């Protein structure tokens, strides 16, 4: 896996933060916070003057990506991936303010992602 001294532009970078487990249910529920970082300098053809629009597009793209707020849970240890019995689901993203660093605009969003532990996991 490549490592970056600086985050790449115009992509979403995911980092998984703290983990919590609720064992007071029929099936244990885990919660993990996902931090989504993204940044852009805009495009060369506009000399970077469109970086605000570019970041705004990435904001909208992220909002679209997290909807609906659930997806079928798949087991990727099997080929092809096997559908499991429950769904993975998450909260609405919480966005941080834009950070300006020279010609770079960046932002991050945090989403709490939940999953039920199934038999055999």
């Amino acid at each position, binding site marked *: 896996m490549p490592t970056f001294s600086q985050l790449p532009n115009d992509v979403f970078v995911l980092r998984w933060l703290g983990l919590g487990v609720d064992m007071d*249910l029929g099936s244990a529920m885990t919660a993990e916070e996902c931090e989504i970082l993204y940044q852009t300098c805009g495009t060369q053809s506009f000399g970077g003057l469109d970086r605000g629009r570019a970041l705004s597009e990435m904001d909208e793209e992220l909002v679209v990506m997290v909807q609906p707020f659930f997806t079928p849970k798949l087991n990727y240890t099997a080929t092809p991936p096997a559908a499991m019995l429950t769904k993975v689901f998450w*909260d609405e993203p*919480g966005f941080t303010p834009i950070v300006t660093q020279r010609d770079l605009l960046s932002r991050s969003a945090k989403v*709490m992602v939940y999953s039920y532990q199934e038999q055999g996991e």
Partner: protein
Amino acid sequence: MNRATQTPVLFDASEQGAFDLDAPPAPWISLGWIQDFTRKPMSKTAPVLTGIPAATLEQVRETLEAQVSLQFLSWTKLTMALATGSQHMNLLASVSGAAAAADGAQAAAAVVPQTGSTATFVALASADAAKFTAGSIIALDVDYTGQTGFLGAPVAGAYVRQALTDVNYIRRVTFNVALVSQVNPTGLTLAEPLLGGAPAAGAKLQAVTGFVDREGGSFYQEWSALFVMQGSQGERIFYYYPRLQTMVGAEEAAIPLSGKNPGGQSRVLLKGQFLALPVTDPLDGERVMCYRSFLPAANAMV
């Protein structure tokens, strides 16, 4: 709790106190974790006064009353039924094109279990088995043929004062429901045993799409209840209520899953409030509502 005979389920902490909390001794059924368990003693006592000036000579109990409130963390047929103040019903899968009804349209025809059925396997003719899929829910009980009184076995799901006309009525109110884990041409394998055990003679099977209860009505749920608190050293506190009746209508409470995001995903809890009814203890004839037992941790000073 057998409503017809007013017989509670017994719990003996001396004999049964070490049971596996995930697999309580029959006929007890685990309803999972609860929170905000609160007991409220409501019995009234009065002093017997004597002398001038009057002073208390004795105390007497004027009324016996106790209440219990709690919140169920999970929604299941049983937790929903216990937490509702009224009758709880199964939404039977309907026939195609049936006229809508608030507690379920006309149900699709029931199928008949074959010999060889058990509490966890319902043998069916292959054509009948093909009507079900893994993951579906079933209700299994006898046809309604005009019975009155408490209906449903082994748990009474309704009290009927006047004869009704719906042949599926008992399957609408029965607690004999289960999730289908596998379907094969010989029948249905269930993910959990039926409360009533192997299908009784005359029992029939219908698919259930969900559950429904109503605000109002005249039926009161009544159950024997056992609450367990387990300490870190293995000690256990039991609260055994032989008779517990719901005393308020259905109510829910929503709590956020993440304290960091109160506006995010929430868990909806079922709130229950119950009135404890008395039984006569055969030991000494005293009328009591709750038995609190304590099993100390191994090697703990007593």
